[in-house]
């Protein structure tokens, strides 16, 4: 049970406070309701590039990092297709420094041409490092547009291509800031060795004066139902063949989200899971294999990714995966097996609550999705899932015409 207090400032900023006395630290996590899905299809990668610019100085504070480091603080941020999340931790005595820094960059950035120029290069190097300088690194650049034809989930957070990032202008940066970065489009969680009264006072003092802004309305295209099997072949300079299968599933807040999450656990969470035991250990078809869900807010993907053992034919490997999926879709799992994955989920939640920063991020996400208190209802939602649910959802998802498959061949 994670206890917290919640209040909203007049300008719409939602604030959540969670006290954890076991740490001498405090975390401030600010989630902005803006992600790669909100980008112009001709300027993809922008939300993430913008995240870099948030560290390039704000209207009254030329350097974000230095004053934070001076008080023993540290920070980082991440962007995904749905949100942009900024977080920092400081020794509890220096909490006000965090409020000072975060409120100023919510008020306005410095918008420096130099910062844009440098961060464009940094992000391009990040693009190369993660997507082109790693074997199999470019998979998402192929798989997302295969699975999505209309919805903006068709591009990865880093963007469709490097030249989109090269084109970003300072005008676009300003425009983006004032349409998406605002107290009424953000959720702040303060967690750790803090108390609610202090957080209330600091929030009023530093964030209270920031004006509400008009947020650009979100109007995302709907992905049409996939009606036929899709596939693509890549020949690349990698040592082994690999296969990537993507199935459409529902939204994060759909009823069956927890069911499908458990389906992925039955298949591949832990060494006793089905595809690890059968395809890696017994049949020696894959050197590694994984099944997981993207967990995105809009209708997401159920993924199966595997690297083939040298000498195994792609068709054999693919057929073996389908055999496991068909089993899920036609035969009920044991009560025991379902209980096992539920136990694992419950245990992971207990361990994840060790970290105050983790709790801060999760509270923010739950609040954005509906209600921070949902964080305390997750176990119950998983416990409710039945063997019939697992069967029905598997049958719904694991259909050939709902599948996009990337065959990734070694040129060797």
């Amino acid at each position, binding site marked *: 049970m994670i206890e917290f207090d919640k209040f909203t400032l007049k300008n719409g900023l939602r604030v959540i406070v969670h006290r954890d006395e*076991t*740490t*001498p*630290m405090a975390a401030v996590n600010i989630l902005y309701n803006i992600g790669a899905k909100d980008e112009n299809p001709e300027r993809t990668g922008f939300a993430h590039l913008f995240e870099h610019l948030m560290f390039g100085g704000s*209207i*009254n*504070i030329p350097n974000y*990092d*230095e004053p934070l*480091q*001076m*008080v*023993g*603080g*540290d920070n980082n941020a991440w962007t995904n297709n749905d949100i942009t999340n900024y977080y920092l931790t*400081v*020794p509890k005595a220096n909490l*006000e*420094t965090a*409020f*000072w820094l975060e*409120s100023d960059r919510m008020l306005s950035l410095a918008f420096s041409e130099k910062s844009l120029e*440098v961060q*464009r290069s*940094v992000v*391009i*190097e990040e693009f*190369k*490092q993660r997507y*082109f*300088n*790693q*074997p*199999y690194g470019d998979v998402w650049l192929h798989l997302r547009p295969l699975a999505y034809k209309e919805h903006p989930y068709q591009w990865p957070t880093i963007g469709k291509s490097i030249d989109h990032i090269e084109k970003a202008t300072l005008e676009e940066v300003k425009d983006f800031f004032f349409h998406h970065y605002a107290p009424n489009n953000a959720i702040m969680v303060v967690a750790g060795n803090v108390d609610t009264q202090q957080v209330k006072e600091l929030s009023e*003092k*530093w964030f*209270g*004066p920031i004006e509400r802004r008009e947020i650009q309305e979100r109007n995302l295209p709907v992905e049409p139902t996939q009606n036929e099997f899709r596939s693509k072949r890549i020949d690349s*300079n*990698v*040592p*082994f063949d690999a296969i990537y299968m993507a199935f459409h599933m529902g939204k994060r807040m759909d009823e069956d989200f927890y069911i499908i999450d458990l389906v992925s656990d039955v298949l591949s969470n832990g*060494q*006793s899971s089905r595809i690890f035991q059968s395809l890696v*250990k017994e049949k020696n078809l894959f*050197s*590694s294999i994984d099944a997981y869900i993207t967990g995105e807010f809009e209708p997401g993907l159920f993924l199966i990714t595997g*690297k083939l*053992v040298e000498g195994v034919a792609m068709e054999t490997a693919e057929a073996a995966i389908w055999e496991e999926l068909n089993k899920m879709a036609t035969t009920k799992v044991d009560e*025991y097996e379902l209980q*096992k994955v539920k*136990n*694992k989920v*419950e*245990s*992971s939640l*207990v*361990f994840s609550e*060790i*970290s105050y920063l983790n709790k801060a991020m999760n509270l923010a996400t739950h609040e954005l999705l509906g209600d921070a208190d949902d964080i305390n209802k997750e176990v119950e939602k998983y416990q409710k899932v039945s063997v019939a649910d697992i069967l029905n959802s598997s049958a719904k998802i694991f259909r050939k015409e709902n599948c996009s498959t990337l065959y990734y061949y070694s040129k060797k």
Partner: protein
Amino acid sequence: MKNLYRNTAPEFKTVDSVEILPSLKHSLSNNIPVHIINGGSQDVVKIEFIFNAGIWQQKKPLIATLTNTMLNEGTSSLSASEIAEKFDFLGAHIGFSASKHDASVTLYSLKKHFSETLALIADLIKNSIFPEKEFKTILTNKKQQYQIDHQKTNVLAKEKFTEMIYGKNHPYANIYDSSEFDNCSLQDVKEFYKEHYTPNNCHIIIAGKVDDNVLSEVEDLFGINKWTNQSPSIDFDHKIISSKEKSAFVCKDDAVQSTIRIGRKLFTKTHPDHTGMQLLNLILGGYFGSRLMQNIREEKGYTYGINSILISHLKDGHFTIVTEVGAEVCKAAVQEIFIEIKRLREELVPEDELTLVKNYISGELLRNLDSPFALSDGLKGNLPFGLDNTYFAQFIKDLKAVTAKKIMELANEYLQLDDLYLIVCGPKECEEAVAFSN
């Protein structure tokens, strides 16, 4: 609101001391040392069994790692899949790792299932049987992972670097060819297990909710008369042979970035200059505000990241700078790195920068040592040097006393151009970056 001065930083406090949850030392009745860190908010326990069974102790490549991994693959009473089934059902997580001087088995368990999960771990450690089929599968899969990793410029550059400073056959380099996977014998693994996974070769760290019950269960399963093999006391010796050549280029023609590694062999954390070098390292490349990060990333945009690090193995250590940069700026990046090192030798670090770094690292220590699990990792790193976690408090105290003058002296003593090795791995066009000299 009145009186809100947004351009002035609020007052702050510096972290002057780090309060650390202490560890208690205990012995099982067969003398296995047990270190206990009791605390935390969750009803969970982490227990780590550490054996002197690392790369240092192996006679052939891969044996330490394979033995460690194979502990999960079957015992005299349970098959690999039965073991996995039981751990998963209890929501427990087990980790295996083999490093330079030791190998360990770590259990993360809910407190309520600790008795059952501990009994399983005891079975793995005491009764493993190393089945042939599982061994073959692991060899195949590890070999493939090796081949994938060796496509990466950062892996290739790291191997070349450690080979040059420690010597190809030294455990700290730990270099082997992919054909070694075909030469591994199960017999070697079984012998390594028998010789090294023994009570007189073991110590234990327990963290989390540790009460008397936990301790008595550990005593019951690992204490006297339950586990009798003994390791012979052998003193393994490995000589370091550093290369006379100080630079190397590793060609990876299809790479779109090159990895740069610059560094040298140095010393362990018990050396009197270690704390000063830690501070120097921070200033140069040890945190986001470091000079290299600010210059190479935030000023020039050559890279997504650049870091420097001090590594302290038990008997020796090294210092290294690592980055991945676009091929077209490789030479320029190498030049800038040398310029930053030269500045440390020739200019005193300004007082405000020194203060900032000292404040930052104090906060970092507080942040990184705030839970029993994190402290158990810290303790694991300190114990081989005869230290415990009081080391961290002393470290902060000593670090705060380091002056700008001292840092300049250290830079002159340890970071002369002639002392440094330079490795570049990337496409052919980057080769000229290696030819660079002052």
